[in-house]
């Protein structure tokens, strides 16, 4: 009786919290559970989930990627610019993903083979990429100094808003990415090496594992996934937005941490991050249904991080 419950709790520690959040909001906010709102919830969470998969991998190798939000924004802007200029949507989407991969490889080379500190390295790339996104958006939208969103070609919004069997297209993409990420982490030798390096990088080196190469690949994959998140964002909004990534970083880190992946590396997983991301978005949707604003969201986000960490501490204390 107790055992399956404990096992579920262990695999998805945020699941009961998500349930409580949804129940509470459905009681205080009428209309919270109607299908349109649920669809919006899934749509909103898609970009976050995709970007968080990469971030989870980075956390597992006991690293940190602060550039994830900027890369999401830059990728969406790139996709919009390239698609707009060439008239070829596919080319734009590829360009967006390539931008993410390039930043990821750069982060990875600096942190892996060159051994720079992840915090410092990705702080630098956060700043540079963010500035580049704003500058190119400003030039492309022809607004000089103030950077606005760059519109995607017409017809794109159809995919971004579309649903299949009531499930938003973008959410289906997100779930596909989650499945691939789970396979990568749990079923490949690379995924195993990620966990081993994250748990003890000295022992990994003594076991003949190329720690630098594992790190390089992890950051490259994280960049790639941030790029994918960026084009999904562009498809969903119908535009590339340089400002979109500003609180994406906070959301991504929050999703990974409250999901239950250790900041210190080694332990954690992909699926638990999904529950973390859904919890954040469920709270945000609820707040917006109640008519509360962005700054209130930040307060709630902060409280959620602390409660989530406390929750994991209590849980691990009780369960040994």
């Amino acid at each position, binding site marked *: 009786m107790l055992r399956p419950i404990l096992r579920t709790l262990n695999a998805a520690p945020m699941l009961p919290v998500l349930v409580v959040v949804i129940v509470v909001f459905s009681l205080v906010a009428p209309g919270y559970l109607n299908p349109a709102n649920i669809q919006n919830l899934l749509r909103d969470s898609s970009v976050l989930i995709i970007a968080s998969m990469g971030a989870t991998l980075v956390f597992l190798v006991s690293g940190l990627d602060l550039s994830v939000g900027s890369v999401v924004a830059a990728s969406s802007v790139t996709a919009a610019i390239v698609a707009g200029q060439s008239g070829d949507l596919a080319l734009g989407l590829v360009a967006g993903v390539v931008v993410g991969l390039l930043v990821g490889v750069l982060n990875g080379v600096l942190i892996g083979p060159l051994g720079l500190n992840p915090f410092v390295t990705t702080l630098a790339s956060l700043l540079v990429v963010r500035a580049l996104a704003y500058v190119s958006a400003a030039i492309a939208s022809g607004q000089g100094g103030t950077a606005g969103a760059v519109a995607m070609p017409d017809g794109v919004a159809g995919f971004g808003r579309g649903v299949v069997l009531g499930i938003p297209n973008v959410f289906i993409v997100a779930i596909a990415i989650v499945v691939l990420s789970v396979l990568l982490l749990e*079923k490949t*030798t690379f995924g*195993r090496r990620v966990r*081993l390096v994250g748990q003890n990088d000295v*022992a990994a*080196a*003594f076991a003949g594992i190329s720690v630098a190469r594992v790190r390089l690949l992890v950051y490259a994959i994280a960049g790639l996934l941030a790029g994918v998140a960026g084009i999904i964002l562009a498809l969903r909004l119908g535009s590339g937005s340089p400002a979109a990534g500003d609180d994406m970083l906070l959301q991504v880190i929050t999703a990974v941490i409250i999901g239950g992946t250790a900041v210190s590396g080694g332990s954690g997983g992909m699926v638990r991050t999904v529950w973390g991301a859904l919890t954040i978005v469920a709270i945000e949707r609820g707040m917006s249904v109640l008519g509360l604003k962005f700054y209130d969201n930040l307060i709630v986000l902060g409280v959620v991080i602390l409660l989530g960490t406390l929750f994991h501490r209590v849980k691990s204390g009780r369960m040994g």
Partner: protein
Amino acid sequence: MRLRGISKSFDGTTVFSGLDLDLRAGEVLVLLGENGAGKSTIKNILSGIVAPDAGTIEFDGQAEASWSQSRAAELGVAAIHQELSLFPNLSVAENVLIRELSRSSVGPVSRRRLVREAAALFRDLLGVDLDVTRPVESLSLGQRQVVEIVKAVRMASSVLILDEPTTSLSMHDREQLFRVIGRLRAEGFAIVHVTHFLDEVAAVGDRVAIMRDGAIVAQAAAGELSAAQIEQHMIGREVAAVARERANDRPAEGPVALEVAGLDDGERVRDVSFSVRRGEILGLAGLTGAGRTEVLHAIVGLRPALGDVAVAGVPYRARRLAESKRRGLVLVSEDRRLEQAFLQRPIAENVTAPWLSRVFRRGGWLDRRRERAFAGALVDEFDVRYDSLDSPIASLSGGNQQKVILARWISSDPEVVLLDEPTKGIDVGARAQIQERVFRLAARGAAIVVVSSDLPELMSLSDRILVMQRGRVTAAFAREEFDPAAILRAASGAGESGAAA
């Protein structure tokens, strides 16, 4: 101090019940036992960290109603725990006087007074002049242990408990520690010395208590029991002698498997040359810091060095650890917790970590079924005691962890195996098993180089012993010439004062 009828259980597992133990002022009690025998729990009860479920604790003839850490500290009972508790970035003086530092939270700390007091402590207690302004992180493991001891002695006034203090110490540091213990005994301390090392009974003990499975199975004055008797009490069966029996069915004169010529890194390894034949066990003796570990690291490519290495006659120039693995040259390094074990990862993953791409890959996918079968068979063969292959390796005792690590490296049927302190900090039973494994490995035709600071062990394992001092090989002994005194002389040699600093 006196324990009467002490019982303790954790999570339903009884550690011991109805245990009696006396500590007397001016006496050194050596507490011996395998891992898991209950030594650490006794230490924790004595120092008030753990409260017994039943039984009484008496101090100075008075029953202590509520024994606690603060009460123990009040009465001058101090313990040195196995895990060092020093702050690596603070100086020796600050570490030793940490209590005084934290007590006067207001007002400046007089640096000069601090340094003076700490230096005096080292002089008085050890007769050593140590530069107490050095940060602890710049000290060797052995020196840190000495600092830890000075720190504890400073807080103690009646009872001092040492939990395996000699595990990481060189022979020289060990003797120094024993002198300190002798001095404290003369001052009237009751000392509990918890250890694995049988020879320490004779070296420091007045009385010996042997624990097994939560009970004290023998108590006697030191010298009343022979080493063999003590071993039998500790493990309760007659495997202790196994290690001493040489397996004589090994190939006597195999071809050279490892050839090292002129290995030199300009610092810790100076012009080291030797060769090891298939089936041969070569021992490297020396003090801590003599360069033995560094030689092993240089051979597998963990440490850049000039000179030639050849494995099975094939020259091996661009040395890297991943390449060494491929050539059948493996290193089981000394620091299990830091360098070998992935403590929170499952046992199975710990076994297979180096062989992921070679053994368990099917086009990039991990072959989990094969991995489990492989790891399961190995840990069973090595007689590892475990609940589940999915339990973290940290849940095993030190000896079982070491068996898992050894199984990991031997599983590839290597050409050459380098073992750095393979039985350090593990109990007698596991030690005998591991030594037997080493013999069997040699019998199978592997060439083995073993580093051990336990000289009797090294002599029992090796066919040949090279002695190192300050990076150089200073002497070589064939098996029939083994003589502890001569080996020690060659290891410490001239200029001993330098090694002590």
